[in-house]
């Protein structure tokens, strides 16, 4: 099996087999993280463009480290220091980057669908490192890898996702990945942040329910994914930290409602004392640091697959349109549902 898309824009369109393949491909790169010498030459001579239009520390460093451990060079664009601040359009910015001939673009952007939009305009592979409140595919993969390592499987688990679901691209990527393996989801948080439509965002048959009482939401959980409260994406009046803590903070006592060895995941950065207590964050059930390490392995696998798969090792064959000769783009529109009334 190979990865058949040119890009990684979202996990939603991927099948269970394709997701398993990506997780399996990450395994050898997990090994490398334990070696004293971590640098490979696999992508020597290749360049990865990192375009982070939205603040990010861990994801940017993680992708940068992944690239360098594969022997690739990186070019970095950060919104604060770039022409974006001077009013340049996203399209102009990425086309300028593309003209510097990177082999892959990793981008984060505050607008949902931004990576999808950019991928339509570029020939090189695009990896979505988080787009607005849509998806964060590499985070979904690294979470699944972490769960699989600890529990030995990712099938048929009870997954409770806690916090600001509405604004969480991490939650969406997790639902789209784990849902393909029969996991059942319980979403819990202040009702304004857990809109009812979320119960229907999974593939047909994926069980997603909303529960507003935390202890009840944790019953029988195999995995608890704690989200950060994303004040920067709020349009609604927020609730106070005190109210949030009262209702939704994951503490040791509440965690006891979950299965005895339930895992606790958090995509970071954590607000200790807000959505999670230090006791839980640092406890034996917490996977927070493994998630970070696995993030590099997953991203190495993605860069390796997309760059080495994109055009063979020789780069683009001269004079051939990449659009015609290569893998399809990994985005929703390519597997758009039939809409009977709008047939033409």
């Amino acid at each position, binding site marked *: 099996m190979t990865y058949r898309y040119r890009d990684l824009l979202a996990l939603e369109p991927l099948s269970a087999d394709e997701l398993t393949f990506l997780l399996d491909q990450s395994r050898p790169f997990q090994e490398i993280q334990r070696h004293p010498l971590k640098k490979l030459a696999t992508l020597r001579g290749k360049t990865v463009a990192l375009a982070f239009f939205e603040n990010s520390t861990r994801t940017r460093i993680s992708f940068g480290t992944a690239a360098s451990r594969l022997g690739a060079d990186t070019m970095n664009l950060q919104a604060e220091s770039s022409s974006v601040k001077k009013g340049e359009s996203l399209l102009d910015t990425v086309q300028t980057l593309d003209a510097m001939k990177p082999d892959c673009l990793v981008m984060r952007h505050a607008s*949902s669908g931004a990576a999808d*939009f950019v991928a339509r305009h570029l020939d090189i592979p695009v990896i979505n490192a988080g*787009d*607005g409140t*849509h998806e964060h595919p590499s985070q979904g993969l690294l979470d699944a890898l972490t769960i699989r390592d600890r529990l030995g499987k990712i099938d048929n688990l009870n997954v409770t996702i806690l916090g600001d679901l509405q604004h969480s691209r991490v939650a969406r990527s997790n639902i789209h990945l784990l849902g393909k393996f029969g996991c059942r989801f319980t979403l819990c948080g202040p009702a304004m942040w857990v809109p009812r*439509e979320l119960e229907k965002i999974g593939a047909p048959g994926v069980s997603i329910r909303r529960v507003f009482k935390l202890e009840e939401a944790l019953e029988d959980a195999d995995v608890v994914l704690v989200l950060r409260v994303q004040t920067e994406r709020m*349009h609604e009046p927020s609730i106070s930290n005190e109210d949030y803590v009262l209702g939704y903070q994951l503490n040791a006592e509440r965690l006891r409602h979950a299965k005895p060895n339930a895992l606790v995941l958090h995509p970071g950065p954590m607000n200790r004392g807000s959505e999670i207590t230090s006791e839980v964050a640092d406890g034996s059930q917490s996977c927070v640091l493994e998630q970070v390490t696995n993030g590099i392995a997953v991203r190495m696998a993605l860069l390796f697959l997309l760059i080495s798969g994109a055009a063979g090792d020789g780069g683009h064959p001269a004079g051939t349109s990449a659009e015609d000769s290569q893998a399809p783009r990994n985005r929703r529109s390519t597997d758009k549902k039939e809409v009977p*009334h*709008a047939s*033409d």
Partner: protein
Amino acid sequence: MLLIKNGRVIDPASKTDAARDILLDGEKIVELAAPGKLTRDHKNAEVFDASGLIVAPGFIDLHAHLREPGQESSETIETGTRCAARGGFTAVCCMPNTKPVNDNASVTRFILDRAKTAAGVRVWPIGAASVGSKGEAIAEIAAMKEAGIVAVSDDGKPIATAKLTRQVMEYCRSLDIPVIEHSEDVSLAAGAVMREGVTSSRLGLRGMPAAAESVCVARDVQLVELTGARLHVAHLSAKASLEQVRWAKQRGLHVTCEVTPHHFTLIDEDVQYDSRYKMNPPLAAREDREALITGLADGTVDAIATDHAPHEPALKDVEFDRAPFGILGFETAIALSLEQLVHTGRLTLMRMVELFTTGPASVLGIERKLAPNQPADLTIFSTTHEWTYDVKQSPSKSRNSPFDARTFKGAPIATIVAGRIIYKM
């Protein structure tokens, strides 16, 4: 003289659906008769053979943005009316959200002057309800009416407050001019780029609920009850709004509404990360679309209007949430109406023609019929002609249509204004 012969004439005003020859002289219709039965001498008339085609009164679009003055890189009155002519429209009402806003008689006169030298389509400006459409002071509605506006609206947004809406309604009632409302509760819609629902949740795009529209319609209907004004609800998209209009009509209030082709064709589930699917009001839910078609059929909806909203590629080719709202509409309106409403058997051809002619005319308080001495404005279209829309061939300066590359059955064939063929396929 121009003789339109052998066409199937559909004239909602007289409920005519029959083969007729129509003789035009100068800017007027002079005679209609069964084929070959004209009594007037027409030996020297230019002949248009409309065999196999529908001949209807000139189509009116109540809702369009021609972008001039001020946003000429997206459209001009010239390019916009050329599109309108290709779409079969003989008259177009243009919204006042230009730069500057059409909130005074000099802007109105400028638009009308430009229209004189443009493509020949009649341009009927709509004036702003408030100065600068800012929702503070009432605009110079009387002066604009004298200059030629046919309605007022702060389109692009609602008239800001209930109190100002009431005052505008009172004033417009005294001036006998309709108030067209872009119905939206701006607090419910704040930040939203599509309709709220499963699709917006999946895409991570911020959604507005149907109530963002319907609470404003409900408010305005109450104010019509208070003031006795004529209210026309622009681009109505939600079932709940339609129910408000239905209720108002049952009470005998003068409330009308229009629906756009994109709202009776597409739904929120069609939205992709492609700004050609971004408009306001946004594409609605499946059940809304179904209700709109029912309303188009049963008479609750008065008109089909395009909300032709050109935005040049540089503005539209951006992240979805940063793109402006709106899509092109003129050139696909007839074809989409046939495809979605007539070919499916939901509406008769007569009813469809009504929605483009007598329907919008009555919103404006004017007549639209085929009879001697009436203006020689005709829309001739085919219900069978197969064609594919190629937006790159459009006379518009913009390209923002989700219907690019769609294949249609049925098309505008010729547009006649004041006795002159201004467009012929």
